[in-house]
């Protein structure tokens, strides 16, 4: 069990979501949810399938535009996020079912994660010498650190389509880390992994959190993992927030137990 270190619980708010509602046509995916993520914490979002967890992440990084509510990131309040703004602002993301660039090597995938940080102009790119090459090399160096960190040296050149699922997830994490995010959104990072892979991934998540000091919000089904990793847990059900607090508080919460034991609503 990971004790919510006091300075985290005290820590200032990095992102807060206020009264956000989102619906597609008639379907309400999120109903008036408010919560916040504090600097440096690992924040878990849990809930039964279709609880709106992924939609919530999509709202945070601007992939979906909520009909109501406000999002405050780094003290800046918006009606809705825009993907580009989110990325620029330092929000990175991995996906429930891996969304890698299948045609590219692991290395190139992670390099792509640095696109925002590379700014040599078109002409230099054409020549691919001098500044352009220098820039390429500098970012390769950074990417290699990540590759080393995630221990994927051996598969650097492999086309990601050919990699086993577990490694793909790792590469995707690498791509997100390449953005050097302040806030990292992980959508079921351990889905479909065997025990060993899960342990590795948990270790990486923790290492990212303390090595890079990255704030992390993750969706996860494996309760054990959630309890071990997270400082605070947000519980959603049918798009509503039904509990929010430290792992122990949440575990004890009546609504949560009902939701998981599937008591009729």
């Amino acid at each position, binding site marked *: 069990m990971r004790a919510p270190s006091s300075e985290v619980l005290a820590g200032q708010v990095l992102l807060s979501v206020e009264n956000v509602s989102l619906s597609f046509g008639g379907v309400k995916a999120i109903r008036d949810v408010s919560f916040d993520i504090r600097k440096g914490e690992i924040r878990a979002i849990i809930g039964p399938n279709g609880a709106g967890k992924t939609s919530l992440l999509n709202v945070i990084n601007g992939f979906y535009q909520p009909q109501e509510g406000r999002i405050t990131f780094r003290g800046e309040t918006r009606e809705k996020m825009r993907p580009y703004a989110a990325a620029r602002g330092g929000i990175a993301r991995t996906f429930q079912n891996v969304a890698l660039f299948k045609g590219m090597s692991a*290395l190139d995938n992670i390099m792509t994660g640095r696109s925002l940080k590379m700014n040599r102009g078109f002409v230099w790119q054409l020549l691919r010498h001098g500044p352009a090459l220098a820039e390429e090399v500098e970012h*390769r*160096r950074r990417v*290699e*650190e990540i*590759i*080393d*960190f995630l221990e994927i*040296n*051996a598969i*650097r050149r492999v086309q990601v389509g050919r990699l086993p699922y577990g490694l793909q997830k790792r590469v995707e994490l690498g791509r997100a880390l390449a953005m050097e995010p302040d806030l990292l959104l992980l959508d079921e990072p351990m889905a479909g992994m065997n025990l060993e892979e899960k342990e590795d991934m948990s270790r990486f998540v923790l*290492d990212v959190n*303390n*090595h890079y000091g990255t704030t992390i919000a993750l969706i996860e089904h494996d309760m054990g993992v959630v309890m071990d990793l997270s400082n605070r847990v947000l519980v959603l059900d049918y798009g509503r927030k039904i509990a929010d607090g430290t792992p122990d508080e949440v575990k004890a919460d009546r609504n949560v137990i009902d939701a998981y034991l599937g008591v009729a609503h």
Partner: protein
Amino acid sequence: MADGTAEADTFPKLLIRNAQVRGLRPAIRHKDFGIWQTWTWAQVLDEVLAFSVGLDELGLRRGDKFAVIGANRPRLYWAMCAGQALGAVPVPVYADSVADEMAYVLDHAEATLAVVEDQEQFDKVLAVSERLPKLLQVFYDEPRGLRDYDHARLKSIDEVQRIGRQALAADAGRRARWQQSVAQGKGSDLSVMLYTSGTTGRAKGVMLTYDNVLISAQNGNTYDRLGESEEVIAYLPLAWIGDHIFSYAQSYVAGYCVNCPETGETVVEDRREIGTTYAFAPPRVYENLLTTTMVRMEDASAIKRRMFHYFIGVARRWGEKILNGEKVPLHARLLYGLGDFLVYAPLKNRFGLSRIRVSYTAGEAIGPEIFSFFRALGINLKQLYGQTEASVYIAAQPDGESFPDTVGKPNQDVEIRIAENGEVLFRSPGVFVGYYKDPEKTAETKTPDGWVHTGDAGFIDPKTGHLKIIDRAKDVGRLIDGTLFAPKYIENKLKFFPNIREAVAFGDKRDFVTAMINIDIVAVGSWAERNNVVYGSYQELAANPRVYEMIERHIEEVNRALVEEGVMAGAQIKRFLVLHKELDADDGELTRTMKVRRGLIGERYAPLIKALYEGATEAAIATEVTFEDGRKGTISARLKIRDVKVAPVAAALEKAA
């Protein structure tokens, strides 16, 4: 001992010399962050200087022992030299040893500090730290994951070097003082302590002086004409004398470049990229290369496969002769040339051995066809017989005199003697000082006049004048009729067959020889597929009658060979069985270095042995096993026992004569 070592008789001195003589040549490379990070001799000197001064600042003193734990990484090699510059003695420790073994070594060596590779190694040290009162500080190379640890007694190597550089910057005389302390070192000083895990008992700390290590290295270099342009790849354990000599001592003496691979699983790729010119490996490395080759070729298209095997045939026929510079008919040369273009050269390219000049196999006996396979490809593979106590070199095969079953002629400055009980003794400049804190063991192995008991039984082969090793001297026994019985020798002959993974032979103080066989699941498995033999489990495959037949044929061959050897014609295998489970280190049946624990097996499988000698055709056995996840359970089985034809001695002798 021509150049250098006369005046440069310690590692630090050699480093300084190299920095002067060949300052701009690469000294060491490390595939890190995707490219080969390279340090020239001058740079290495700079790094080691900083490191060394840092250690000095942090209180490493002359005569102190310090542990070096981890994989082959530049900074761990530097650590050794940095310590040696202060007159401290490095104690490399096997990175894969468990915390308990580690505790013993560090405690016994009285190490005051340890240089570890990463968190994994540090955790082990930490786990046993309360048993190591003398251990004051630990320095690490890889910071990953160690951020949250208490850094009171823990520092990164960077930090140490920073301290060193500060000290050097602060005080102009510092460097000079360091050089003095280097100068104080003498060839007769203690250079390194290497712990050898024997088949029995606790590990012993072999003390070697600079002269031991460096003179042997020098002799090795002259023997194989190794120069500064060699490229070697360092991937074998630091704590193993082999690596210490080949990747450290010989490199410092000759000034050649040592390359550290990126990870364990990329060694082959890394070797290919570098193109090593000088290699050294235990037989299993070559064995794996050959096995993977054959397995892969099974998946190749029919034409390609036929082409491959045809030319391998050609190579086996002519390759050795060509390599040994014998004269061969023109058509053979042409054919071999073609084969070289189509198969050999590409194959060597895949192995990363295209540029190999000298490549040694040592530590164990190597299978003849494995040996001749690589020779046939034109790789100058040779056998070597060495020991930690000898700083490796005892005997080695000269170029053009390679035989699969000998270990070669005495190295430069080495004398060899065979005791009447058949044990091999040697005397050389490399002979160790003694076992650390263990005078009586030292006395057992080392005579006052400097002869060392190898503990191996052997004889000088009259045909070739090469030394042949039969077995561990203490294991050599006699049948009741008095014929010489060398189990290991027989077992090796058996193990040379790819289908046989392990073999245990019995016969000491018995009427005849019997054997228990372990099949190699990979080799036999793919054989089974190709011959559509269906099997559900290892046990099932092992019990398959056709497998039995196959093994039986192999044993008959061994018997024939034994007869031809003459010496042990009487010790042919009369009965055998195939074990239902693999002998396993986790069950204590093998040592960590994969040597069979004869005694323990003798007890555990007593009923089988009984059956083997009582002439039963079947025997039941129940054994306890430890599964991957540590759970224990028992496997029980009924095993068939078979008789084997023995080759007529007389006839064979005539043939031999």
